[in-house]
């Protein structure tokens, strides 16, 4: 029986905890420098984001109307918000607008992205053309669409006229006005979605397609079995970001219809604006903003859950 002399055990120090490691490596001077460097961004966020958000919450429980002295009204503005039939209509319109603009624009964007990912002539021009609405001021876009929707001389009804169809009066008819706004929303939202999909498509591994081709998969099968599943992360991102953006739709409504006719196109953000600047009911507008904030906060949480949470996870 042989015995082996083992070396004496070496005393190993326990690994430092992350916090103590930070504490030991950063000197006081480094910390001060770090704070100084963060300060501009921090002050900016405090002044332009934190303060307005806090003020909104504070004012939402007051009767603040610009014209009257401030008075605490508890949850009165929230009760009024949900009793207000126009705001309830606005919530419904916002949901309908989102329901139609987001998936339709995403489907068109995927189609265009796949198309413009091929080696075709003037590809860059097509991409730029489709992205153009995204970088054009919405006010300008809405003004052009106002002309398009002119029932008598507008492009929309002229095109329908060629097909023998008598077009509706679009934004002048409460039954069609929201649809008209949705069509414009879809058109305007395609560009950015297409760019995101295009970027995602260019990262898909070629070998998967080669293998599928060798196995005899046709173009549709390759699209359905490879492209679409591989685009899932991009789709989740585009979907949630687009939903949040759709909930904030304002400028196209403001320019195109002013929420009319007869509140047929009013949306949550427009109602907030209307209460704040048209009817001077700032407290009520703040309460409606908080409701909108809760909607968006919920959507953001869903986004974080679906796309994997913190960046450093």
């Amino acid at each position, binding site marked *: 029986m042989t015995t082996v002399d083992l070396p004496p055990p070496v005393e190993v120090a326990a690994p430092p905890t992350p916090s*103590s490691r930070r504490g030991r490596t950063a000197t006081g001077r480094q910390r001060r420098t770090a704070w100084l460097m963060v300060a501009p961004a921090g002050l900016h966020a405090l002044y332009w984001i934190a303060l307005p958000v806090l003020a909104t919450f504070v004012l939402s429980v007051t009767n603040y109307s*610009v014209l009257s002295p*401030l008075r605490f009204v508890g949850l009165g503005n929230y009760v009024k918000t949900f009793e207000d039939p126009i705001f309830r209509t606005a919530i419904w319109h916002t949901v309908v607008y989102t329901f139609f603009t987001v998936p339709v624009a995403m489907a068109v964007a995927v189609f265009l992205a796949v198309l413009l990912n091929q080696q075709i002539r003037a590809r860059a021009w097509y991409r730029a053309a489709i992205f153009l609405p995204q970088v054009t001021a919405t006010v300008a876009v809405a003004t052009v669409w106002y002309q398009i929707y002119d*029932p008598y001389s507008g492009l929309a009804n002229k095109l329908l006229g060629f097909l023998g169809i008598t077009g509706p009066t679009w934004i002048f*008819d409460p039954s069609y006005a929201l649809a008209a706004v949705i069509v414009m929303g879809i058109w305007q939202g395609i560009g950015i979605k297409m760019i995101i999909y295009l970027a995602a498509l260019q990262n898909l591994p070629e070998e998967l397609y080669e293998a599928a081709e060798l196995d005899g998969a046709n173009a549709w099968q390759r699209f359905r079995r490879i492209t679409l599943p591989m685009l899932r992360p991009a789709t989740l991102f585009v979907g949630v970001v687009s939903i949040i953006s759709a909930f904030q739709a304002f400028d196209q409504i403001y320019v195109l219809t002013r929420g009319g*006719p*007869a509140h047929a196109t009013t949306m949550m953000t427009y109602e907030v604006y209307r209460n704040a600047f048209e009817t001077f009911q700032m407290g009520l507008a703040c309460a409606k903003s908080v409701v909108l904030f809760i909607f968006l906060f919920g959507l953001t949480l869903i986004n974080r859950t679906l796309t994997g949470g913190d960046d450093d996870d």
Partner: protein
Amino acid sequence: MNARSPALTRRRLLAGGATVAGLAALTACGARLDEPEDLNGPPEGPLTLLTPIFPGADGKALLEKQLLPTFLAQYPKVSVTVDYTTYDYLNQKITTGLTTGIPADVLMVGVGWVEPFASRQILSELRVPAGGLTGYSDSVLKSCRWGGKLFALPAVLDTRFGIARRDILAQNGYDRPPRSMAELRDYAIRLTQRDAGGKLLRAGLDVQSLDPRQLFETVLFAFGGDLFRDGQPAFSDPTTVAALQWLTDLQLKDKVIDQGFSSPKATTLPIADGRAAMAIGHNNWWVTTTKQRPGLIDQLQPFLLEPDKPSIFAGGTLVSVSAASRHQSAAQALARFMASPAVSLAGAAQKGNVPALAQLEQSAYVRDPKHALVRFGLENLRYGRGEGGIPAWLPLRDELLATVQSATTGRQSPKAALDALTVTANSAIADFGTS
């Protein structure tokens, strides 16, 4: 120690943030606490003027190069900074001014705005000009007063009434415009032209080129109705319902015009290019007509909708002084200047509007044969009726617009729409208070 620091910082940050937010909210309403200077002092100090008239580069040049120098020569210790806006953004400008505690010293507002602002001590009571208020129409001055006190002076006016194409009427055997609402409807039906396929070629009466709210008010006043009576809404009154029913029937039943045929945003006027025989229109339509069909300006014939109970819609721009102004004496002097004949005439001429003073009836601008609509507006100011009348008017303006749209597009019957508006109005009045 290190572990506790972040929590402490967060708490401090939150507490600090809440304090600052609270202070911000409180100071937002505290601006009016400043003591104004003595009204009897000499006019001096820097002033700001917020105006929705004098638009564009031409307006700026007119005001700053031609008009204001006269005022500044008279009051050399006063300086004026002008904030230009449009009626679309006037509310926002006033709101942000009041919120930040730095409203303009002199505010130009619309008819219907004095009551809410004066009742909340946003405006200063104005001193009656040395020459008194002679020359201003009583109907317009009514919109400048609140609680028996004067809070504004009229600068330029916007009037609305019937306008007919003289030549189209003549071609169809009419030698005069209609003389009652019933006759107007009859004319409108007979003058409407469609092709074999039913496409509208000529509207009998254009009721779409004006803002629907102001259009309805013009009709309501012609019916002899009121928006409010003794501070209470008169929307469910039979007269108001009859007025909206008349307007709705014209469009949905008589089909004297099709939905979307024209709009307040349209750059051309159907009556100017013969696509409408008559209209309920604005005195400044002569400007568009002159550009669109210069030869036809003589064919526009203004008329009262109901000559037996004459009325026209009289809106306009009024000059007022902010109660928060620290230079009351100078601000009041500027307000009087902005409502003086010279400025009123120049402002009206620039926008094609009606000057506010009767003495300007003899001015070259008003007597110009091309400006028959302006002359008609000025001559009939004694029949002028304005919108508003109660402090809660501002929250109700949009609602009235939506009500009219709701009825004239067939979404609701006029009575149902107006009854709903009455409920909204009662709630707004309760919220805002009637005094």
